[in-house]
């Protein structure tokens, strides 16, 4: 199963399993046949996404394939279309062109609940009534697994327990969401999306605004998911170093186009950061992944 494909310009490639494997990533070889295993495969082709109020599409012809059972990080400056791309992948935004295939099926034609059983999305800003308890919030994650009149089952309770444990918010279980700190809230929301028990998980800036401790908590949760449950994760991250440490693959976006993709070592380079983020940096490879030291912002015409 091929993982990487370049932009829509050469999207005449056959979609699906026979596309040539252009990646040099170490995990990619191992994951070649992953679609036969449990891990799910999310594959977007020539995606054009926009909002009705904006004349220009925000994402213009992006093709992206999330490696099954691996973590793919989306990075890029503000307004580069990361969140929009994520919404497109989750069928929250109908594409103007292109398609998203989840295990070979077009997400747009899938029943919404069936899709929500396979693919979970945690948006950037989630709101809830203050008086709801963490446990009740997490129970909402079971929504797609229940029929209109069905009550909660043993399986629901197990999934909720597991999600709460995995997200490390057992001690918050009976607290009201309104009384939690930002970091604790985020853990509660992550537990909710984990209770959804999906094969694919899309996370939109799950670590933004969190303190270091909670950032690490979130990263550890994602690592656990990948290592133990074979979940395919696509995560938008602002912190390049964090993304490089966490992700198996990175995709860099700018102005709605994919500028680079590949293993973190290939993507996080001084040239790319200069191009995509318009900063001069000093990138040093360390055993904990690349270390990026920003030097100065580039201004128009300074090149």
């Amino acid at each position, binding site marked *: 199963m091929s993982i990487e494909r370049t932009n829509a310009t050469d999207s005449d490639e056959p979609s699906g399993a026979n596309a040539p494997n252009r990646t040099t990533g170490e995990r990619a070889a191992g994951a070649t046949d992953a679609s036969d295993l449990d891990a799910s495969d999310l594959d977007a082709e020539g995606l054009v996404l926009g909002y009705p109020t904006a004349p220009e599409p925000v994402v213009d012809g992006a093709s992206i394939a999330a490696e099954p059972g691996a973590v793919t990080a989306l990075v890029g400056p503000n307004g580069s279309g990361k969140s929009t791309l994520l919404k497109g992948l989750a069928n929250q935004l109908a594409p103007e062109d292109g398609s998203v295939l989840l295990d070979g099926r077009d997400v747009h034609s899938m029943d*919404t609940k069936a899709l929500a059983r396979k693919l979970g*999305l945690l948006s950037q800003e989630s709101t*809830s*009534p203050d008086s709801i308890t963490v446990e009740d*919030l997490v129970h909402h*994650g079971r929504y797609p697994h229940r029929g209109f009149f069905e009550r909660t089952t*043993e399986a629901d*309770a197990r999934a909720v327990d597991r999600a*709460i444990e995995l997200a490390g918010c057992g*001690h918050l279980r009976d607290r009201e969401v309104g009384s939690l700190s930002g970091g604790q809230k985020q853990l509660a929301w992550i537990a909710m999306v984990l209770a959804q028990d999906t094969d694919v998980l899309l996370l939109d800036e799950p670590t933004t605004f969190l303190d270091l401790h909670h950032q690490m908590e979130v990263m550890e949760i994602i690592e656990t998911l990948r290592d133990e449950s074979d979940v395919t994760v696509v995560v938008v991250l602002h912190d390049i170093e964090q993304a490089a440490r966490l992700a198996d693959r990175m995709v860099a976006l700018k102005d709605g186009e994919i500028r680079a993709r590949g293993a973190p070592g290939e993507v996080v380079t001084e040239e790319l950061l200069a191009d995509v983020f318009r900063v001069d940096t000093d990138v040093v490879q360390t055993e904990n992944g690349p270390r990026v030291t920003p030097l100065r912002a580039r201004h128009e015409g300074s090149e």
Partner: protein
Amino acid sequence: MSGERSAVGGGASTSRSAGTDRFGWLLDPKLVSVAVGSLAVVVVAGLVQVSFGAYSMTVGEAWRAVLDPAVLLDPRWLLNFLVGEELMRAITGFQGELPELSHGTLIVWNIRLPRVIVGAIVGMNLGVSGAIFQAVTRNELASPFILGVSSGAGLMILLTLVVFGGLSAFLPLIAALGGAVAFLIVYAIAWKNGTSPVRLVLAGVIVGTVFGSLQTALFFFADDIGVVQSAIQWTTGSLTGTDWAQVRLALPWTVVAVLLSIAGSRQLNLLLLGEQTAKSLGMSIERVRFALSGVAVLAAAASIAVAGIVSFVGLIVPHMVRNLVGSDYKRLIVGCLFVGPALMVAADVGARLGMSVLTGADAQIPVGIVTGLVGGPYFLYLMRRRQNMGEL
């Protein structure tokens, strides 16, 4: 770190088993006390209503009339009231004269008790309707009439009374239908590849403004003071003159609306998490939103058909209940079924007897005036006590 995590998680993992009783949540102590308290208010206010009036009795006499075994133990009389004489005869096959009732019992059961029951039904409908609309628009200040229902109904009431006087026998149905049609117009205006709470509220304002103007214009053309008074009664909400016919008219729709809203409480809870979350959990949000709004309009229309446009009840009741039992919609809806009637029946005491107590004049005022007088200060109290209001 991870060791602590799993220990904590594991310890709490069995705190709620899946087999929680399906109706266990009903026994929530707060909900039970809300229900008991509200019932007490309904009973006391109801007793005041059946005791006083042109034919006054003592509370003891009123009690005895309400609990008169000649009615309560006679299914023919009960059916006669609840489903009407014809149906009663069809069901029981009884053709003779019904046994005679005492004077007090007749007055209580024929005139005063049905008014209390209609009030309770209206309170339930408005409370549930308001609760649903507050979730659908994710706005605490939403009322059953936020999506144009009241303006549609009001316009049709005026049209019927002023222009098509011959149709006034069908006024209740015309008013309810007018409200429903206005709601559909609001939805159509708000729709553009789907809709959103803000668009819906804005469309409601648009339709409300236009219909409100037309309604006022029609007032201008009414030349009979009786017509104007009747129109005011309908557009501010009144229980004057309601009897068993109104109970029969509203009860079936109320039962349907209440059952549907309880069934939909999980969807309502999910709507509170925001459109994005609801969508990513697989809810077909437009369908659910329209269906739930439809249920709320049904409830509001049922109350309009029997009592006109009673303001504020649908706005305050969900608020009070939310303060008491929390924002979980299962409990909220059930709470509204008790608090709504309590507020409405108590307010109707003021509407029916207030003027005669205050001025000695034997006049009734529309109950909507009393609910407005109570509702304003309640919101003032909320505003003072709480930092932020508005978004749910």
